[in-house]
């Protein structure tokens, strides 16, 4: 009866109130830096790698979020490369991708799974 049906291993990352509305912040899980975004306008949450692949800078959590053609995105503050928050593809036409991670909200806390990428 105690078989594990859910394989995803969730890690408690922070309180929901730690992440600004319609913005992001970084959390540290082990040695990984994860950017967490609270897309209040749609009620959705996203987690991605914090590093922008362009110049390899730990920065994406400080980027502005928004949408392009209804795809939720984050813009890197350094050179304004934009990435889909849904699947990490670069929306400004370059061959970069960022990792995205499963995220869920429970009882006022943000949980992230960094074992398997979405």
């Amino acid at each position, binding site marked *: 009866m105690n078989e594990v049906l859910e394989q995803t291993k969730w890690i408690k990352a922070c309180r929901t109130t*730690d992440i*600004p509305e*319609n913005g992001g*912040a970084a*959390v540290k899980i082990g040695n990984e830096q994860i950017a967490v975004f609270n897309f209040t306008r*749609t009620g959705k949450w996203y987690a991605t790698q914090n590093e922008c692949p362009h110049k390899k800078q730990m920065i994406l959590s*400080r980027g502005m*979020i928004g949408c392009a053609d209804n795809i939720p995105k984050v813009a890197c503050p*350094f050179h304004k490369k934009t990435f889909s928050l849904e699947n990490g593809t670069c929306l400004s036409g370059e061959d970069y991708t960022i990792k995205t991670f499963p995220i869920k909200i429970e009882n006022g806390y943000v949980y992230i799974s960094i074992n398997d990428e979405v």
Partner: protein
Amino acid sequence: MKKIIVAGNGMVGYKFCEKLISKSGTDKFQITVLGEEPRPAYDRVHLSEYFSGKTANDLLMAKEDWYKQNQINLLTNHTVTNIDRFKKTVHTHNGKKYNYDYLILATGSAPFVPNIQGTDKEGVFVYRTIEDLEMIKAWGKKAKTGSVIGGGLLGLEAAKALLDMGLQKVYVIEFAQRLMPRQLDEKASAILQKQLEKLGLTILLNKNTRTITGNQAINGLTFSDESSIESDILIISAGIKARDELADKCGLEKGPRGGFKVNHLLQTSDPSIYAIGECASYEGMIYGLVAPGYDMAEVVAHNLCQPEQTKTFNGCDLSTKLKLIGTDVASIGNPFIEEPDAKTIVYEDKHKLIYQRLNITADGKYLLGAILVGDTEQYGMMLQTYLNKIVLPQNPENLLFANKATESSDNKNYLLNLPDEALICSCESVNKGAICRAIDEHQIQDVNTIKKCTKAGTGCGGCTPMLKDLLAATLKAKGVYLRNILCEHFNYTRQELFDLIRINRLHTYDDILNRFGRGHGCEVCKPAIASILASLYNDNILKQDTIQDTNDRFLANLQKGGTYSVVPRIPGGEITPDKLIVIGQVAKKYGLYTKITGGQRIDMFGAHLNDLPAIWEELINAGFESGHAYGKALRTVKSCVGSTWCRFGLHDSVSFAIEIENRYKGLRAPHKIKAAVSGCVRECAEAQSKDFGIIATEKGWNLYVCGNGGAKPQHAVLLASDIDKETCIKYIDRFLMFYIRTADPLTRTATWFNKLEGGIEYLRDVIINDSLGIAEELEKEMQILISNYKCEWKEAVETPEIRNKFRYFVNTDEKDPTVQFEPMRDQIKAKEW
């Protein structure tokens, strides 16, 4: 059903299958694909991205299901070893036999490994397959110094990959006198070389590698000139040779430089056997690019489906635009043709590392070829001009600068003069006539709609700048006024939005988006509206921190490496010794690099996000205020020492500068604002290069506006002369508010002024003669902003909710562990990215 066998599952072999299926469906042919590699075809052009995190799966041309869905029998790990042309069968290395009616050879090429002693040592690799890259990645982990033989495109990519893997020193060894000898001339190569050296590569030219040294594994290379280098890893990228081994075995004819010899139908000497891609030799030429291979695939697929209307392959244009590491490179047509067959126009900028060469016919009418390094913006336009044999404009050199000089209408007129048949988008074959008709019929006002209606610009995207220009030129010719709308979320210009927000007294971004916009905003409209709100109310911007541009969001300047720089205000550049000491103490305590800025103040670099509030607390306690160096706001009012000390000074420029700076500090605008006050006509404060500048005269002050330093220097123009202080301030109030109300986002006063119809006379009318009747309103608005001023850093430090936002991680108090500095001249600098 006829049986087709495709030998080779690379990009071209795959493309052939895709094209055949799309033309014939699945019931006309029975297709079997024999691939040597363990996985289905993948995108070899973007192979290097395997190093930057893409997986082998990401690179696949199509997933395995695709072959199944289309009833293609894909057999990976199957190498074709022989062909029995009489029985029409192919044999594979594992002893299997397959019958064919048509055999398509798409065996590609293999890296050419020159005859150098020691290529069998461990740590020597080629750069062709995912397996190669896996081995390089594994070996590279323990390597410190690396080298690449071959300074062509692929070699340079391999070198970049080695750099990215963290090797300390990477050599590129080229046998010829220059890099990319087949695409670039000497000067172009020299510019490229400089760019690559800046990235950290060491380029060795004229080098003939003699031996690879080391016992079991490589430890270095020696050259024929007796020199040598150390190297723990070597990648050989010295060109390709066609995979044509089957030709000798089964008696197919070969081209002079290898490859299966094919005719214009891509048939080999056996008409039921075709060859396409890098293994084919057409008219003695082997095409090492993917585009000609795709063209060949198209010809064969078409002819098999519609033998009654044959297409032919007639060679291929080899113009290419490449995103090389760190720079863009392109070549068009014949890049090397010289006098007397052609005249050349050359532009060389060793500072910005740009080289452009146009080869035109002796009569100046047509473009024959071009080389572009460092700036390939005009590639699309030039390629069209070349391919369509379009008559060049009177001054062909304008092709080089067309997009730079916005004032020059030459470029846009030139576009209008193109014939309707001129191909604008070569990926989707859309010509100019079709685009102009679409603009007309659908009353298109933006490039995205052109893309949707015509498909132009949806392939490689290279023609997008041309679409933009064509749209602007077409609309202008029709007399349509093109509104510069903010972005996809707001169908308003900044000025319209400014008025809407002002009239409706809106205070939050969400309210504004809900009322006047659509979607969820973006990095363009958020800071633009944040700036409007600040210019209307001058409220603390961190109340809506996530709509602020990065610098504003943390009230500091984001620098390379992710740390911030801190600039306290030093009005007029005047500072007491005590305050200087405090800056020194703070910088020392927090390990900051210090530098005097161009605006007469002191910048402290390398501050961790977490340290910002504590740094500011100390500065504020010593009497400093925010310098707004991070904002699109008033920066500094520079001054010369003036009449208090200077023998020539007419008035006290320092006192006036301090007064002005304190008056406008914290004022946010569409872009940054810089000002200066000079005490006499010698102009030591350089006021005529500022957004507004004041110069003392015998009778009072002269007020200059809309100057600019920076990338596009522009002298300020005289707005009023010999006025007293009060009048001067009144005019500046009006001028700044008028600019703030009407400028587009991120537009400096100089650019705004250049677009202002009526020029300085009009501006003088509005500011001095109050021709619009708004002068009083402007002054009042400015007064509100001035009286609402508070030092935002003081508020941030004293308000716990705001102060709490300055945390790098929200789940631990740690600082960013990835921040790294390097020592330089007794201080630090950011680690190179």
